[in-house]
């Protein structure tokens, strides 16, 4: 067991709801971004999926809105130790967006307006595990939280849920994204506490 910190009692989380190791529950929605919040107008917003052969398919905002949407209720876990429980989102499943994309790639680099990148295995984006989310708690997603649209991959640490999403590049080999090159784990499973490289 670790050393005991004299005089520290702590505040216990609700026992009925488990959070990953090293996390605490917050009602806040902290903001962690490496740079300024980009101003992304829906009228010039575009999402592009590019395969390993260079073929691309793009959606405008109107086209994204025309796709079937899903409501998602999920806990989210930030590597800086906060977890937020029972958040609700609305967006388009990656299963929908990638349905007609022909690929044998195993990895994806998510790219954001503003230059942020993060890498995720393709299989972690499929089978109801990931969305392009544009509403949070019933309201349009605020720019500071990634609006107009962000990737939502809630089973991984939240830095994988790239804000201001603009592209998904399919890759045969794993490349590392922004935080993954800056000391953080390549995969980032909160339940295994894969925080750091």
């Amino acid at each position, binding site marked *: *067991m*670790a*050393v*005991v*910190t*004299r*005089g*520290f*009692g*702590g*505040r*216990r989380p609700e026992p009925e709801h488990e959070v990953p190791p*090293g996390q*605490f529950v*917050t009602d*806040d*929605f*902290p*903001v*962690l*971004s*490496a*740079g*300024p*919040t*980009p101003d992304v107008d829906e009228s010039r917003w575009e999402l592009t999926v590019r395969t390993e052969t260079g073929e691309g398919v793009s959606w405008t905002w109107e086209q994204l809105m025309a796709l079937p949407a899903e409501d998602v209720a999920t806990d989210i876990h930030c590597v*800086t*130790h906060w977890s937020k429980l029972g958040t609700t989102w609305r967006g388009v499943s990656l299963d929908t967006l990638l349905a007609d994309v022909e690929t044998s790639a195993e990895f994806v680099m998510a790219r954001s307006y*503003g*230059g942020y990148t993060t890498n995720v295995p393709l299989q972690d984006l499929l089978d109801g595990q990931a969305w392009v989310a544009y509403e949070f708690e019933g309201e349009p997603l*605020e720019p*500071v*939280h990634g609006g107009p649209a962000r990737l939502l991959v809630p089973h991984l640490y939240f830095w994988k849920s790239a804000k201001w999403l603009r592209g998904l590049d399919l890759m045969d080999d794993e490349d590392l994204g*922004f*935080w993954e*090159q*800056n*000391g953080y784990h390549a995969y980032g499973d909160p339940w295994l506490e894969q925080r*750091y490289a």
Partner: protein
Amino acid sequence: MSWHVATVVGARPLTRTARALTLSAPGFVGALPGQHVDLRLTAPDGYQATRAYSLADTGQDERVDLVVDEVPDGEVSPYLVRDARPGDQLEVRGPLGGYFVWHDADTGPVLLVAGGSGVVPFLAMLRARRGTGRRAPFRLVCSVRTPADAIERGEVDTPDRGVDVRWVFTRETPPGWATPPRRITTDDLVAPGFGPDDGTAVFVCGPTGFVEAAAGLLTGLGHPPDRVRTERFGGA
């Protein structure tokens, strides 16, 4: 990356809510200025709580220098600010984060913009700069509510060749201050030698609302977004 057992060796109140803590952490290898650490506290029954804190110094000699500002209703910061005392043990892991970092070999101009306790990583940068020949010109803009909320103002205001400091008071100014309380403006962020065309490296740290406002002013002035590094705390 492993946890190091750390012992509190120094504690010094800085403001009504902030306190400097120095830990002795055998095995801690030191940090780049701007990096942070995880702290883990363990209650007698084994319950643990972990939080991230910016480092106020680069932690050579296996020392970890923190400045902790108490978060109202927080779980860990009230303990660290009010209760922890020399001899108490906790654990530290790090250094962490490879982006919000100033490399002391860089000689280009550096613009640091702090809101409240967001000045903490900049203390590490200023202290590191003093150790390396003071070549890079620094400008530090600190926004605080009142003079009593200013962290390490004495150190920050001590003349340091090549460092230009500007204070902004948002609720209450020192007696005789030239301007009434106000929020940070574009004028605070403009200075010869620290513009977008000077290759300025910009760092902004503070509460989310402050960082959003300041980063917006900076990109509005033409600083390229990829030259504006930010660290936010608190919700929005």
